[in-house]
């Protein structure tokens, strides 16, 4: 086993060179590079944590804003609904009034027309009486040769019209 058989001649060289190269590795790698590597990792994990917390904050903010927007939206909707119903009521009232006015006008017109019709009928009736009186005088004069006075004829016509 060379480890034992060569021990006496080589142990000093082994120890010295191991110390030399281990020390070089320790100071360059362990002392020089490892802290930098770990520093980079720390900075990265810190940045990741920061980013995550920033994202959390942003999400919370967004949630809050959405909440506010929703509330505002609901309010607006309610207000719009109120406006619509108000306008509807107003319009309904207006049209009712209009309809009522139109109704009144129509009623008046109807009444007038009725009156006119009644008047025309009276006129027509009087005309008929006149015509009938004339005709009666004429017929009596022709058939009996008696001249009937106009008032007598008229009363007779009236009587028979009333009966007829």
């Amino acid at each position, binding site marked *: *086993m*060379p*480890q034992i058989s*060569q*021990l006496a*001649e*080589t*142990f*000093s*060289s*082994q*120890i*010295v*060179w*191991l*110390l*030399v*190269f*281990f020390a*070089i*590795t*320790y100071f*360059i*790698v*362990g*002392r020089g*590079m*490892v*802290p*930098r*590597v*770990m*520093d*980079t*990792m720390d*900075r*990265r994990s810190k*940045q990741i944590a920061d980013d995550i917390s920033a994202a959390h904050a942003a999400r919370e903010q967004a949630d809050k804003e959405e909440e506010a927007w929703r509330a505002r939206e609901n309010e607006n909707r309610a207000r719009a609904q109120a406006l619509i119903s108000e306008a509807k009521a107003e319009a309904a009232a207006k049209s009712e009034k209009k309809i009522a006015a139109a109704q009144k006008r129509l009623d008046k017109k109807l009444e007038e027309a009725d009156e006119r019709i009644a008047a025309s009928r009276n006129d027509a009736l009087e005309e008929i009486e006149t015509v009938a009186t004339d005709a009666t005088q004429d017929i009596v004069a022709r058939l009996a040769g008696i001249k009937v006075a106009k008032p007598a004829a008229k009363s007779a016509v009236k009587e028979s019209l009333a009966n007829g």
Partner: protein
Amino acid sequence: MYQFTIKPLFGTEEWELGSTGVNIAFTNSALWMMITTIVVIAFVQMGTKQQMIPGRWQVAVESLTSFIDNLVQSSIGAQGRKYIPYVFTLFIFILFGNLLGLLPLGVLGVHPFTFTSHFTVTGVLAVISFSIVLLVGFWKHGFKFFTLFVPHGTPIFMAPLIAVVEFISFMVRPFSLALRLFVAMMAGHILLEVLASFVVSGGLAGLGFGAIVSLPSMLLMIVICALELLVAGIQAYVFALLTALYINDAENLH
């Protein structure tokens, strides 16, 4: 055993520290330590681009550092952060040493040397870890550090006995730490070598022996190669983990 032999590459004669006779020849072992150092530096360097969106190399390095970070934080706690450079260096140095020693470069005529299969090397690493434990322990707690040997809730009449047992187990730590890594690496390499020799000698003994011996050995080698890659990682992890746990004893004292 040839693969564990240390061969001086240069500086065999005159590389002595003063007149002490301590030879520090630059050997193949030292060469592979150097290669490990260079590869580790090059690898970790790719993780230091400090990009917010990391590339694949940066992710690889970062996952290793965060792995060690978790290990240290879970075994030592928040004040363990200052030991991360040491534990990370320990982990990655052993890991790359193990993995580079497994490279099949023998095909190209270059023989990789696994310096973690030498207990001189693992022993030094274990002693460093153990020294850190002692230094931190006495620095932070002074002589109260000795209460480590008397766990909480020990009956007072049992305390001397328990203290002796605890002291022995404490002192065994560097040895177990060093021997575990050394034995695991060496056993794996020897196993692969033995199986490889089966493949070769079975093949040389003829077609029949080749089919019976070489083929199953080859298949087993492939499986064990995968196992060795796993062991390379696990042993590096165990070394780092135990170091962190021992430092925790010194840092938090129960």
